[in-house]
């Protein structure tokens, strides 16, 4: 039961789309994951639309129009739904900036002469002693 190269790539593409569509009746699972009737129908529709030449975007739009935005496994990046994406990015970048800013402020207050740790053959032996300090 071999598959031709055309159906191969369609199937691969279809699975990617399956993973982006939620099952309307199951709790928090994609149609790729479940076996209920409506999920199977949706999967068939996805493959049919791919064979008819629709793009991934068009197929996702098709389902979104009929079932609402919550049929998509991730919110589209438009309108108020963009907050889902933007807020965490801003927060994480802000955290890193604030963190680095605090570090730099601390350093400015206590400037330390940076000595060049030249090639230190004793480094690992000294590590033993350092470890003794650690363990105490």
């Amino acid at each position, binding site marked *: *039961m071999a598959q031709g190269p055309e159906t191969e790539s369609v199937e691969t593409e279809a699975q990617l789309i399956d993973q982006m569509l939620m099952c309307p009746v199951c709790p*928090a*699972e994609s149609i790729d994951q479940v076996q209920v009737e409506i999920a199977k129908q949706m999967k068939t529709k996805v493959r049919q639309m791919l064979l008819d030449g629709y793009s991934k975007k068009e197929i996702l739009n098709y389902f979104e129009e009929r079932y609402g935005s919550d049929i998509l496994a991730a*919110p589209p990046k438009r309108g108020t739904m963009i907050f889902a994406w933007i807020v965490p*990015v801003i927060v*994480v970048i802000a955290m890193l900036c604030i963190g680095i800013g605090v570090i730099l402020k601390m*350093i400015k207050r206590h400037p330390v002469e940076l000595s060049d740790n030249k090639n230190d053959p004793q480094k*690992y032996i000294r590590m033993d002693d350092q470890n003794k300090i*650690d363990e105490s």
Partner: protein
Amino acid sequence: MFADIGLVTLWISLVIAVYSLCAAVLGRLYKVTELITSSYRGIYILVVLIFVSTLGLVGAFVSNDFQVLYVAAHSNLAMPDIYTWVAFYSGNEGSLLYITMILIVFSALSIRFSGKVTSDVLPIVAAILMAVLIFFLLVIIFMANPFEKSLIPMIDGQGINPLLTHFGMFFHPPALMAGLICCAIPMAFALAHLISGKCEDEWVDQGRIWGLIAWGLLAVGLLLGSWWAYTILGWGGFWFWDPVENAAFMPWIALTAFIHSIIVQKRRSMFRMWNIVIINIAFSLSLYGMFVNRGGPVPSVHSFGASDLGWVFLGFLAVGIMLPFAVFIWRFKLLTSARSLESMLSREAAFLINNLLLLGIAFVTLWGTVYPLISDLLWDERITIARPYYDQVNGPIMLFLVVIMGIGPLIPWRNSNWKSVARALKLPLAATVISFVLLIIGGIREIIPLIAFSTIVFVLIGILREWFKGTKVISSKSGSMFIVSWIRLILANRTRYGGYIVHISVLMVVLGVVGSSFYDYQRDVILMPGDTYDIKSYSVKYIKTEEKLYSDRVEFTSVLETYKDNKYIGELRPQRSFYPDFNMASTRASIRSTPVEDFYAVPSENSEDGSVAFRFMINPLMWWMWMAGPFVIIGAVISLWPSISRNKVS
């Protein structure tokens, strides 16, 4: 009879817990040592009492006492005795009793083996832990009583949820629940020291030990849950950012941050304020994790179902967040570090970046979990946030974190300069570039796997290089064999090298995640007996399906002759069972696993005419993910070892 013993001991436990709390507080306030000692004795007695209560519930299961509502709801005559342990904690009431048992055991251990914690602080630790215990006892006795009986005698029960009849279920929920409640221990030590005005480094040792224990338990629980999902949920995935998964993931992330930043405090007496904040975040998230599936508003495969309990837990969560925060504000001025950060190019700074990235991941996870609710409330807009979202947002942060995991250990403490850092980076970077090129030559073209695999090489070479150099030094000094010297090296600095072993296990997980996410191959197909199906280099011949009838289910086992490169490699026997009482099917995948790839077969439907719908998957590198489990445990144990042996009785 068992249930009666169970309930009576709970009541007695409540009384003694209240006593221990009062004795600890009064003994501390009026400096009466005898009261404090009796408080601790009460705690030790509670271990026995609550354990007896637990045995009461187990006994009720084993004796098939279906008059006990909880037993009837979670077992039946057909259930093999071995699942009694699982049934005990599989429901809301029983799991609360389990959590309470773990809490008292950990509390008693932490009081008994409290290291250098002074006698003016330890009673406060005891009081805090007793307060938490009393909360759980009250909830169990008055709102979620596993020993409640029905008025009518029952002949048989409903049975255990079919999804739970899996080896992983013996350890996944207990490990997770133990890890979550364990967060109360380091938090209690932190809080008690703050209340006592001891705002330097006195709590660091106990904080680190119990933080590491909680972390290890959650890590094992999360990995086991993933393994369970992989083999039993029937779709070849192992993590899908389910709200309840996230609720256990977030405290684990916070604890990962904590076990790193606490090292800085231990070494250099820095990050004092930061560590209080982090442990409070971890504790708050663990409370959220414990309560989200008991009356939570989010739909999930895990939900116990909504109830009034949700409000009670929300209240406790609020108190659990606000009280430590209030104490933190109260003692804010005293929480200053002994030293300051000296350079951006220092181990301390690297740890801080590590912490920020981890908190970032926790925030993204939290945002993804709650944003659908926010969106619905604010704009009446219903959206879903599932795996594709987290892949795009958390993915890059996690990848960056793995890079830091490789760089951080190579940077010295306090300060350094680019020259010496470059020297340390030379070999790992060279290996990385070589592997990058080799990967491209080997056919890998996708950017994320390229970066991820190269980063794995980078981190690994960094660790191996340090191990090699250190071993060589010890070996030349002492003249012993290489392997002996290596072991001595590990034991000489267990914190660091235990950590490296855990880092290696992280690399193994990354391998599994990237391999299976980017290079998996999946086909759903319906086969009649006698059909052959080719999938890449594999070939399966569907022989037949054996049907076995049990009193609570029908079990279909399909026999597949499997060939790879036209050579017979064995039989796969994926299974599907249907439970009419639960109107639920459960599947068991049959997997041929090698370090290179998993060949995975699971049936999704058994038809009347003997045909079966199968899902076949080829999942590269999954094997590495499960192998990481033992390494996590070994690494955590090594990291904990000296502290345990050095702890004196208080």
